[in-house]
């Protein structure tokens, strides 16, 4: 009976461990930015209270494709960091561009078509799991 109890506890422990939070990679990356693209909007990241995010954000357009470029980003790490394009800094309405590729470097996120950039005017670094803003850039 003792063995059974230990096995049950072990199974639960294994299950709970497999869902451990994983921080964002912090290895610096330097993704290639299309130099022929035109910059439509840009802004500078402002850190949220208690967090550190530095760097620039800009939306570039090449043909029919638009992308969000995070330039020289430096952010403190956290679990489940995502890149949002949002209507405000609370992410009341947002487009999820996916997990932040790295907390350091220059990175490019391809945007879906037909975004109303007048409405979705903030680039956010956002901890999705805990709903915590790390930094925001107002795109003008």
């Amino acid at each position, binding site marked *: 009976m003792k063995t059974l*109890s230990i096995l*049950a506890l072990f*199974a*639960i422990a294994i299950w709970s461990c497999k869902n451990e939070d994983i921080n964002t990679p912090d290895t610096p990356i330097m993704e290639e930015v299309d130099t022929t693209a035109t910059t439509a909007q840009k802004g500078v990241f402002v850190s949220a209270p208690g967090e550190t995010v530095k760097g620039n954000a800009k939306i570039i357009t090449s043909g029919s494709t638009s992308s969000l470029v995070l330039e020289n980003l430096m952010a403190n790490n956290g679990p489940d960091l995502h890149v949002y394009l949002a209507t405000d800094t609370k992410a009341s*309405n*947002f487009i999820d561009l996916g997990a932040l590729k790295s907390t350091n470097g220059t990175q490019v996120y391809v945007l879906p078509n037909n975004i109303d950039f007048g409405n979705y005017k903030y680039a956010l670094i956002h901890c*999705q*799991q*805990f709903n915590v803003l790390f930094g925001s850039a107002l795109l003008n």
Partner: protein
Amino acid sequence: MKTSLLLVCLSLWLTLPSLGQSTHDASPLKVVDFAATVGSANGTVALSYVHNWRLGKKKRIEAGIGARLTTAFGKKLDYTTAGPASLTRSFTTPFLIFFAGQQTENWDTLSVQRPLVNALNLTVNLGYNFNSRLSAGFNIDLIGASFGRSSSAILQSNGNLRTEPSAKPTVFNVLLTGDHDRGSLNSEFFLKYKINSNWGVRAIYQFLFTEYQTQDIVQIAGDGTEIDRFRNKANNFGLGLTYQF
């Protein structure tokens, strides 16, 4: 769930006539059970007390009531629109609703980031003893209350994403069949093997509803109905350890 209902109806049909014949001489079984289950994206632990009566001439049938505390947890679980049944099913007749088609075009998805629900419910239990060691059974939560962790969530509606800062477990649980249900409800099919006169182990298939309610934002259905309850349905498997007094 359709299979569950059929088995429940069949079991009730088989057991009800014998209830009247044998309740006077049936000595009740009092059992405490601890169960743990896992699914593709969630898990549960449950502690329950079962009070069953032995029924029938050979006392092979068990039926009774109990209480169960189920704790369900996971990460980034998707909860879909939890009724009203008139929006989510093709027809809404109680019990027959199991056979109704699902109107998924009216569903929105609430992705609860850190769900944890504790549901304390009254249960009904049915079982059949094949021999002195092996039995099979079914149980389901009837009514109770839930409490748990508030969590941020993301509501996906017609391709748009919105943040719900603090979704909470639906407080009141009640089994009303299909999408008439409300709250968090656990049900199990199991095979039980008695190791000795006190201890036994169970192999469990679990069908689990958990429900979260938004506080700040709602789904607006096509007819204007505002919906704030969202449900996750999980098929889990697990083990249980029972102690019979």
